[in-house]
């Protein structure tokens, strides 16, 4: 089984990689990527089942916080069922299910995502203050001064625009930050290449083989 899994990963991985550089293999690459998309969707559904089973076990064992787990399972299963039958129905039932799904998305998912993002405002500010207290070195000071200058250059100030800040902001974002960001991006790309190659050469086997 270990050899088989490695052979599958290497063979299909190389075929997809070759598709980037050999035009004749484009169609095969598309087909293989479509299959991967189907498997990824199935894996997502397996993940959802796993979430249900983990929280179901918490309820069965009457662990601490099992009421939250019950709430999670009820909301998950009901959303899944409503969404599943939504397109199978017609007429008034379909309209009702459409309304229900849009209420779930607009009333729970969107506001929760936006508010969690909004909470970052407080956490980021708190973290920035803690950074100065804990590690007041050159890197932290440059980091915080840059962030403050960019925010001052972006925000509409009560006493009007200050050309110094907007000019400084342009220089920082279009020259200084580009150099650092480009170094980080190239470093990330090199790291991705190395990790990908380790998988394709079967040095790393995160799919079960040792």
């Amino acid at each position, binding site marked *: 089984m270990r050899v*088989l899994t*490695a052979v599958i990963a*290497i063979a*299909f991985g*190389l075929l*997809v*990689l070759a*598709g*980037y550089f050999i035009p004749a293999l484009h169609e095969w690459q598309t087909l*293989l990527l479509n299959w*991967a998309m*189907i*498997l990824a*969707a*199935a*894996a997502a559904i*397996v993940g959802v089942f*796993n979430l249900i089973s983990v929280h179901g076990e918490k309820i069965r064992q009457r662990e601490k916080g099992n009421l939250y787990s019950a*709430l999670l399972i009820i909301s*998950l299963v009901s*959303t*899944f069922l409503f*969404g599943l039958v939504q397109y199978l129905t017609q007429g*008034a039932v379909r309209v*009702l299910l459409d309304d229900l799904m849009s209420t779930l998305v607009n*009333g*729970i998912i969107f*506001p*929760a995502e936006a*508010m969690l993002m*909004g*909470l970052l405002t407080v956490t*980021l*500010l708190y973290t920035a203050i803690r950074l100065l207290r804990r590690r007041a070195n*050159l*890197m932290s000071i*440059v*980091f*915080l001064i*840059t*962030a403050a200058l960019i*925010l001052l250059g*972006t925000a509409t100030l009560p006493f009007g625009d200050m050309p110094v800040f907007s000019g400084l902001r342009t220089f*920082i974002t279009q*020259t*200084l*930050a580009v*150099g*650092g*960001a*480009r*170094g*980080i991006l*190239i470093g990330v*790309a090199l790291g991705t*290449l190395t990790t*990908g190659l380790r*998988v394709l050469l079967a040095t790393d086997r995160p*799919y079960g*083989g040792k």
Partner: protein
Amino acid sequence: MVISPELIELITGILSFLITLMILSYLIGDNPLFRIAAYLFTGVSAGYIAVVAWWQVLLPKLVYPLVSGNPMEKAFAAIPLFGVGLILMKIWPRLSKIGNPAMAYLVGVGAAVAIGGGLTGTLFPQIGATINAFDINLVPSDRPLGFVGWILNGGIILLGTVTSLAYFHFGANAKPDGSVKRFILIEILAWVGQIFIAIALGVIFAGVYAAALTAFIERISSLLKFIGLL
């Protein structure tokens, strides 16, 4: 039974108001209200992901070709169907090893996409952009300081790129006394590089902070608007 749009809007508004308040309550610390909102959000999102996976991927790309496709399409759809069967074995811990070949396929294809994307989407364009910063044919006519400014700008970007990369170079030789230190030139480049990295991260931080602040203001304004409607 058809519910009026006004009632739907009211229910959505109340739900949205409650969820926003519950999550906002995290500012006073972890509490049951925040947990209710977090678990509800996780449940609804997971259910929604499963629905999208079914209607947008599995049904059109797998089920329809198998049910109503021509023999060729059916044959091509049978292979991922077998893979889906293997992946579903992951639900049961005892049978989960049977799903490994399908996971190997996903990992192999994912690695290839990461390599291809890293090369064609990041490495080549970023290196190309660094080189183009010195292309005299690309100097804009309205650029301050003209050609000199253009080259200076390209030089600073190149210095930032090289020194940032040097910062992540962790190769070092062991000294006779047992201490490990990087080559002196790399040390100097890395010191300059950390300043460029700090500036880049500061700009990213400011961008994320501005986005978070926008989301926060939008939520607070929707709360106030809802209270005003009552």
